[in-house]
């Protein structure tokens, strides 16, 4: 459709095309290009509307109903704010899952970023084989939220798993990590921290941007390694830290796969791994309370947006953008 409005650039007609372009009214060009743009966008646009926007709006509507998946959509009852009321006042397992998720994000995200930055600093040197190590450290995060990895984790951190055998070498008696309600969530945190590859690569790129003359000048002034790190590296890196922090926090809140696999989809032992998204999934698909689950999803969306907003509003106090006039 779009191409029929634009003349085909056949070689013999070059001159006339140019002439035509001169005489053509600019409005028409814009119109034609706009249409072509939308045509080329259409696969993505259809996807956005069909897979994201429309279902999201539908779920907003459902969050005010008692929709239970099995009932026909036309038969659902409007219950107003009942789902939200129940969530905030009458559902202890909801608050438990909030607590588990916040705990997970509060501990796993900072540790993951520290690990990523630490390793990035080590790998930011020019020594032989550094490329290989970069690749190796990045590997775990390529496996991402994979089910296979979670299964490996469960087997490694069993009572008779590899980790306890390793501890046994030192005469330490391990715990049944994944099957112990005191330790199951911590085991998941370790898994998340271990996958520090993605922020590490971003940190590495950030470190390469720091001008070496700053370090040279600092060294001349007698600043030691530690002082250089806190006075130069960290401030120069702060935009990258900010970016990683926002991204990883959102990721941390959304942790699902590992908790699902580790607990056979139950959030166990004793709800110790009942992450928010897992609770949402169980509510919607196992207990069939899709209206309630939709309400949970919307509260989650708003909560993540708020956390992100807080990051952005505090960011101006500690994030330094070196280029341009801003700090």
């Amino acid at each position, binding site marked *: 459709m*779009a191409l029929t409005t634009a003349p085909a*650039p056949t070689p013999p007609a070059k001159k006339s095309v140019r002439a035509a372009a001169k005489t053509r009214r600019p409005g028409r060009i814009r119109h034609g290009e706009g249409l072509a743009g939308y045509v080329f966008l259409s*696969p993505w646009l259809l996807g956005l509307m069909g897979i994201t926007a429309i279902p999201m709006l539908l779920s907003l509507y459902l969050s005010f109903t008692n929709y*239970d998946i*099995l009932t026909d959509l036309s038969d659902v009852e409007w219950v107003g704010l009942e789902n939200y009321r129940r969530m905030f006042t009458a559902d202890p397992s909801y608050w438990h899952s909030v607590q588990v998720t916040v705990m997970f994000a509060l501990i796993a995200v900072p540790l993951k970023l520290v690990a990523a930055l630490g390793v990035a600093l080590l790998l930011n040197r020019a020594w032989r084989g550094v490329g290989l190590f970069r690749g190796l450290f990045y590997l775990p995060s390529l496996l991402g939220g994979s089910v296979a990895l979670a299964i490996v984790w469960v087997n490694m951190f069993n009572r008779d798993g590899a980790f306890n055998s390793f501890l046994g070498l030192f005469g330490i008696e391990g715990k*049944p990590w994944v*099957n112990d*309600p005191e330790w199951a969530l911590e085991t998941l945190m370790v898994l998340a921290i271990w996958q520090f590859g993605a922020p590490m690569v971003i940190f590495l790129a950030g470190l390469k941007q720091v001008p070496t003359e700053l370090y040279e000048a600092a060294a001349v002034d007698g600043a030691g390694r530690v002082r250089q790190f806190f006075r130069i590296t960290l401030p120069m890196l702060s935009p990258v830290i900010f970016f990683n922090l926002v991204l990883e926090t959102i990721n941390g809140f959304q942790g699902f796969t590992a908790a699902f696999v580790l607990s056979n989809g139950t959030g*166990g*032992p004793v709800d110790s791994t009942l992450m928010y998204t897992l609770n949402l999934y169980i509510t919607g698909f196992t207990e069939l309370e899709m209206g309630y689950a939709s309400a949970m999803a919307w509260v989650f969306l708003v909560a993540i947006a708020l956390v992100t907003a807080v990051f952005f509003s505090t960011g101006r106090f500690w994030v330094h953008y070196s280029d341009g006039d801003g700090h």
Partner: protein
Amino acid sequence: MHPATSPTADAPAARGHRTAPRRAGLLRRLTAAVLAVPLVLGAAACGDDDAGSDGKIEISIFWWGGDARAKLTEEALALYESKNPNVRFKKTWQANQGYFDKLATLTAGGDAPDIFQIDDNFLTEYASRNATLDLMPYKNEGKLDLSKFPESLWQYGVVDGKLAGVAFGENTQGLVYNKSLLAKHNLPEPKTGMSWEEFIAWAENVSKTTKIPGTMDPSADYKALWVWLRQQGKDLYKGKDLGFTVEDVTRWFELWKGARDRGATPTADVIHEGNATDITKQLVVTGKAATSFVWANQMPELKKNTTDELGVIAYPGDPSAQWARASMYFSVFRGSKHADVAVDVINFLANDPEAGKILGTDRGLPSNLEIRKAVEETVTDPAMKLSIQVENELGAKFGPSPQVPLKGHSKVRSELVKFAEEVQYGRQTPAQAAAAFVEACKAAIA
């Protein structure tokens, strides 16, 4: 699926034109391809014709199970196809984990299979929301023959006066024990009819002698609690209410706290492993306990996961508290466009002697008593033989079936696991956990 074929089919053509001078042609082609993708996707989405190109009626059928079940079921369905050439099946099957998530999603999309397998956990959930077709009229018209079924068995598919599913296979609770282990240490085997206290004392002795915990702790297991409650003159549900009190559950939790303190059971984390419903994780086959509390028809499947000899008896206490339970059902989706054919297929699978022989005892003892007899005479698998024998022995002692579990039953089950584990891990006292459990149950079935 269809859309995947179109871009790949286009690729060689586009490559062929790379050297051609007519770039405009290539561009047009590319645009066409870009535009075509969503179109093809759209077309594929509406391409689910009921009558295929060959004019046959397509019946979709969905079940959970392993390879063996898939093979038997496909064979039986092929037999139906050969007798009814105008019918064609669209078969889908998968493991139990995730099955009900998928079934719920399909139902939500109005895309539920014509026939689906379901169990008593979810039967009421589906029936009370009108997702299942009421089969009672078909039964009354004689299109669905349940006359050879034990009365209590087919009635275990009745929810609110509607026949929500046809019981496919009968089973009952079974206590499976490791025969080889006991023989090796010259220990007596447990016997049907021993009291819970006797059983726990027996298990304690096994732990001491073999250094392997004598029994799985079933305090988180709803079916064990259920049998125990019935032995106390109570039940899991009564009408639209719970059939037990906080005191009952406290005693149940205390019974097993005592057993754990005496070393009759494994530690909490091992019990937690055994609390998974997955057959391969049952402690009697992972070698972490000498017994497991399962369903009797799971014997053959358990046997596949261990080299040890297994035995099976009733749960401890009075065996008349057990009942003939429908191990699963086949239901028809209320929105099915070919309900009559779907019912006929279920009728065929349940009552046709040939189909019955093919299906065997894979889903439990065949519901049709004549077929059950025929299958029993021909079965060769020793584990299957044993489970049939035990179920028949127990069958003589069975009490009446309880009512089909209420809506919210799956939540009740998961809450039991949670609060029993609270006690097992020593985080709550039996009384605390029992009170919290009963409160959670009341919310779940409200």
